[in-house]
């Protein structure tokens, strides 16, 4: 399957249909995306597993959110 067909198929999953000319413009950026995927994976693998095992970026937001709600939660872990 060529890149253009892959792009069209992926966008179809989102119910988005583009013209041929529009799809053509996405081919090189899509190839860049795949190249960047390899670069990011390489950066991730360049660290030891332990150093790389961090919480996802979104994780601390839960803690911040507990600071904001008029809380019924006990943030110290009590009942």
């Amino acid at each position, binding site marked *: 399957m060529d890149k253009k067909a892959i792009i069209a198929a*992926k966008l179809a999953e*989102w*119910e*988005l249909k583009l013209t041929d000319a529009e799809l053509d413009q996405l081919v090189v*950026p899509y190839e860049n995306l795949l190249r960047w995927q390899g670069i990011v994976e390489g950066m*991730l693998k360049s660290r030891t597993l332990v150093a790389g095992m961090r919480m*996802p970026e979104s994780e601390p937001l839960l803690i*911040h*959110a507990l600071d904001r709600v008029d809380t019924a939660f006990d943030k110290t872990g009590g009942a």
Partner: protein
Amino acid sequence: MTTAPELAYMPISELSGKIQKKDISPVEITQAMLARIDELEPQLHAFNIVFKDEVLVAARDAEAEIQRGDYRGPLHGVPIGIKDIYECGPTTCGSQALENYVAEEDCTSVAKLKEAGALILGKTATYEFAYGFPTNQSYYKPTHNPWNLARDAGGSSSGTAASTAAGMAYAGMGSCTGGSIRWPAQCCGIVGLKATYGRVSRAGVYPLSWSLDHTGPLTRTVTDAALMLQGCAGYDPLDPASANIPVPDFTAKLGRDITGIRIGLLRSIYEDDCDPKLLGPYHEAVKKFGNLGAEIVDVPSITLTQLQAIEWPGLFAECATIHVDNIRNCGDKYNPHAKLFAAYGLLVSGTQYLMGAQVRAQVRDDLLNALDKKVDVLMLPTSGFQINPIADESPGLSIVSSDFSVYTPIFNFTGLPAIQVPCGFDSDGLPVGFQIAGKPFDEQTICQVAYAYEQAAEWHTQHPEL
């Protein structure tokens, strides 16, 4: 006797003293700004809308308050511009899709600035939804660069940058997801301050990418940037990323000696591809810091390609989340490439996005370690290429190519505070600048370092001929 250009280009730090002493009235200043907008707007297109009547009413109110002794502080009676993605009256986001939208209330940062006494001149032009470059074919026309009218002003906070540089406003607010405060500030030869992620509320500002979006000021001087930040910073429960920490006096360290300050150069990002036209003035700035007593050291970091690999997939995946329904239903109202950028984000897989988030944390921790153990601030150019001429037709997806060498996103995905400072002009007379970044929530130190350079180099005293 103050001449009209002197008044137009007066720093807020000086103007505010005259307002407080009642040497000049907010009404007089506002009328002068409106006259200058009338004169220059046809050339620059820096504003999407000017609040002529409303700002004069606000100016008269400010004048009355000051006359009766109720002076609020350095922004009281000072006319500023607001990027047209902030909710404040008509808010188009530079898109035909929102041309009739009127916000019911002011967003948090505008409300804070009004509370500090600032007068809102109008809504400044923006790249469509803060990412879609306008062209001569666009529904909302591009902003022209005051230093060279054939060129773009940079973006996405193009109108705020151009109006501030041209003396059509004393300052303005921009937003920054990959460099949209610092890059247009460089292109227009002014200061842009992106504070730490969480320092300034984004509530009521149209999002582009919530994990990268910041809001902040563009000004003509470092002192004015600190004063504007003072007016808009602070905890806001309406922004889920807002930091509930005290707001210090951002001007407190201005004027302090920088002897012994350790400046870390992030050479690996810019050394291979920065246009020598821009690199020359940058190297002169590094030398000047040495002359001022700073210690210059190297800090190993990522490359430009790695920077792009981290920034753009995450940004456009989040962008697509926000725009997917719109581009399905009214994509024809977007700039052609703005629609395609949103579609591009749909091609990013969940794993790509999450790997990017992990690597963001790696880079952030590396920079935090360097700032903890090795240096006080970080330095690098703002971009590696000259701003392009205004395009006649859609430029395609040029941002997501290796040629788009803006060096600003590293401080969006790490969240560190960063300030852009002008450092002269290239051989074509276009402004050049650099960034100083610092520890989280230590905007005081980056302002201190930037101010020391600004006062020694004096580029801020030069203005475009219009």
